[in-house]
């Protein structure tokens, strides 16, 4: 297949349930990489399906959207519905229960990503045989690590169950509050294993940090580029994964906007549609579609916040920022290190919450003046997640718009793949090295593609090289 005389190389991950992706590398006549396109089939049916449903159903309904981070959708939708019922000033018990749910989700998601998906790349190297470079390989060579990953994931999932009612598809967050508190028995169960979780988080952070520092030569340029960064931050500038105001900075760290009430996000963020992709490309309105794209997720959050309010994660943040002299870190592979700082931050937050008697409070729901339109934002494990709804006077949803974390990172992921292709494609032959590196670059962003989070941590890839007439020159599949 050819487009304007360009040749296409296609890397196609095997399709699974939620959305899948495929990489197309467009070559020019000289067989140089002209552009890379990461096609992600996003599940957009939700926005239609939710039409006419009662608003209180949405936080539960929306969990069906994504099997990978249902809790993030649950909470983002619940935050929007808080605004609809005028209950956005949650009771202390409700807010803290939701935070506990969210940090539990962050903890289990980051642990899963690190131990199951990313650690094989770090422990065995990008070029290791995929037959070994997966979680089974990790379990064989580093059994203790594999066990830690499983136990940490389980701890996070149990926190989700205790706050949401179920490990997946719970009902905990309701408009204006929460439907349960944390019993003393539940709390004590979590306190028992807490120190172990903190300890394991420290050691995971150390692995990520040591690896990044030791391999800085190769990692610094690997799929890296300067970009703006966006996240929620607290009113005092601190990292806040559950709630805050929008802040965006440029690659140098200059503020683009700060402390923006996310109810007004449409004044600051727009979405561009490109004909070749199902997934939209969000951008900062004032900078325009060309320059306005930005990154979200752990790396962006480390860059936008001015401090972290838990001591160990703050110390880790200072070390992280020292690497780039306090300027924003634009190294794609530093996502892993940033993610592990957030892992430690999450468990520190969980610890503080478990010792907070408000979790045993009984004042669970607040309501105020009903509104017709609302936006709910949260910092999901993969980055800022936007939920926007309009509700009619009969309490039915009449409009829904979602910008998921992976959509926010759409342009950056495309750029990362393009850069890696430029750096590692030679000729028109597909090498294992290219396949591996494209996979590693995509994985740094932890996109919510089912293929990227394949159970074994191995991204099934298919790559084809086609000449200008559409003839297959080479083909490789995993």
């Amino acid at each position: 297949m050819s487009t304007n005389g360009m040749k296409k190389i296609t890397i196609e991950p095997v399709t699974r349930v939620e959305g899948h992706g495929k990489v197309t590398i467009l070559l020019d006549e000289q067989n140089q990489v002209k552009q890379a396109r990461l096609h992600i089939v996003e599940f957009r049916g939700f926005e239609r399906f939710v039409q006419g449903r009662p608003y209180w159903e949405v936080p539960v309904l929306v969990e069906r959207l994504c099997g990978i981070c249902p809790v993030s959708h649950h909470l983002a939708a619940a935050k929007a519905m808080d605004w609809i019922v005028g209950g956005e000033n949650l009771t202390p018990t409700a807010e803290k229960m939701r935070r506990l749910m969210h940090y539990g989700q962050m903890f289990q998601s980051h642990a899963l990503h690190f131990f199951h998906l990313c650690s094989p790349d770090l422990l065995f190297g990008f070029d290791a045989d995929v037959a070994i470079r997966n979680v089974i390989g990790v379990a064989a060579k580093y059994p203790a690590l594999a066990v830690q990953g499983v136990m940490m994931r389980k701890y996070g999932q149990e926190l989700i169950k205790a706050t949401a009612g179920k490990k997946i598809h719970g009902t905990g967050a309701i408009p204006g509050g929460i439907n349960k508190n944390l019993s003393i028995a539940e709390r004590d169960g979590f306190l028992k294993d807490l120190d172990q979780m903190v300890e394991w988080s420290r050691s995971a952070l150390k692995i990520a940090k040591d690896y990044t520092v030791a391999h800085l030569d190769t990692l610094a340029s690997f799929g890296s580029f300067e970009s703006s960064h966006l996240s929620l931050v607290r009113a005092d500038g601190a990292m806040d994964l559950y709630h805050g105001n929008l802040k965006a900075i440029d690659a140098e760290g200059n503020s683009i906007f700060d402390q923006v009430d996310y109810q007004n996000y449409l004044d600051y963020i727009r979405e561009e549609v490109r004909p070749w992709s199902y997934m939209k490309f969000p951008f900062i309105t004032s900078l325009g579609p060309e320059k306005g794209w930005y990154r979200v997720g752990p790396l962006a959050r480390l860059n936008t916040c001015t401090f972290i309010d838990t001591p160990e994660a703050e110390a880790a943040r200072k070390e992280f920022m020292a690497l780039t002299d306090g300027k924003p870190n634009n190294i794609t592979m530093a996502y892993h290190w940033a993610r592990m700082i957030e892992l430690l931050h999450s468990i520190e937050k969980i610890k503080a919450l478990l010792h907070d008697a408000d979790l045993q409070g009984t004042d669970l729901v607040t309501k105020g003046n009903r509104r017709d339109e609302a936006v709910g934002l949260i910092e999901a494990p993969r980055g800022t997640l936007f939920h926007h709804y309009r509700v009619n006077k009969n309490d039915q949803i009449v409009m829904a718009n979602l910008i998921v974390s992976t959509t926010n990172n759409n342009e950056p992921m495309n750029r990362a793949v393009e850069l890696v292709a430029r750096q590692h494609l030679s000729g028109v032959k597909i090498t294992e090295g290219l396949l591996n590196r494209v996979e590693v670059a995509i994985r740094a962003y932890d996109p919510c593609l089912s293929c990227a989070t394949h159970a074994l941590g191995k991204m099934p890839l298919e790559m084809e090289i086609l000449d200008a007439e559409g003839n297959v020159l080479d083909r490789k599949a995993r």
Partner: protein
Amino acid sequence: MSDTITFTIDGVEIQGRRGQTILEAADDAGVYIPRLCAFKDLSPYGACRVCTVMANGRPQAACTQPIAEGMVVENDTEQLKKVRRDIVEMLFVEGNHFCMFCEKSGNCELQAMAYRLGIAAPKYPYLNPKREVDASHPDILVDHNRCILCARCVRASKDLDGKNVFQFIGRGPHKKVGVNAEANLSDTNADVTDKALDVCPVGALLRKRVGYAVPVGKRLYDLEPIGSDIEAKRAGQEK
């Protein structure tokens, strides 16, 4: 003539009162016969056939069939369980029942019945009908997607509320619960305190804005299967 009637269910001797249905007598004796349209304060209706038993060798709806002296009733048999499973599965595929996000989940009799009967996934193809939601009433939501046409609301509105808000309209696959007004529920005298709202076995007739308030683990059927309350009576009697 004595008012006591003696009969058996699955070989166990049961004493009932003259005029009782098999279902009523079984309930009193602590024997659970599955049912979906029957409801204690409502007149028998015989719509769902989930209560099908063998009475003297013939299939009968236990909720409408009166007991008789010496009657031999089979209830808890493999054959009848299969019949009931088939009926419940058909109810599932006939409507749009998304238990995973339905606010009635955990309190829903249809869902609880499926669990009790051991239905994992229906073997019949889903019909995915197009059904409406009537959200016009300020405090009540009607979601026809989940209606199983049990007529409980129809009976309760008429007999308990004295209102006649709900009526069946249409026939066969087009049959649905309509309202006694030009168009919408908001045009009727339905009220949030109506008993009709309490009897819906599924999530078709709901009070607005209270969904999900009860956490998972505290809902009606989270811990005990449907029918356990009736069976507990028997356990009590045997002590």
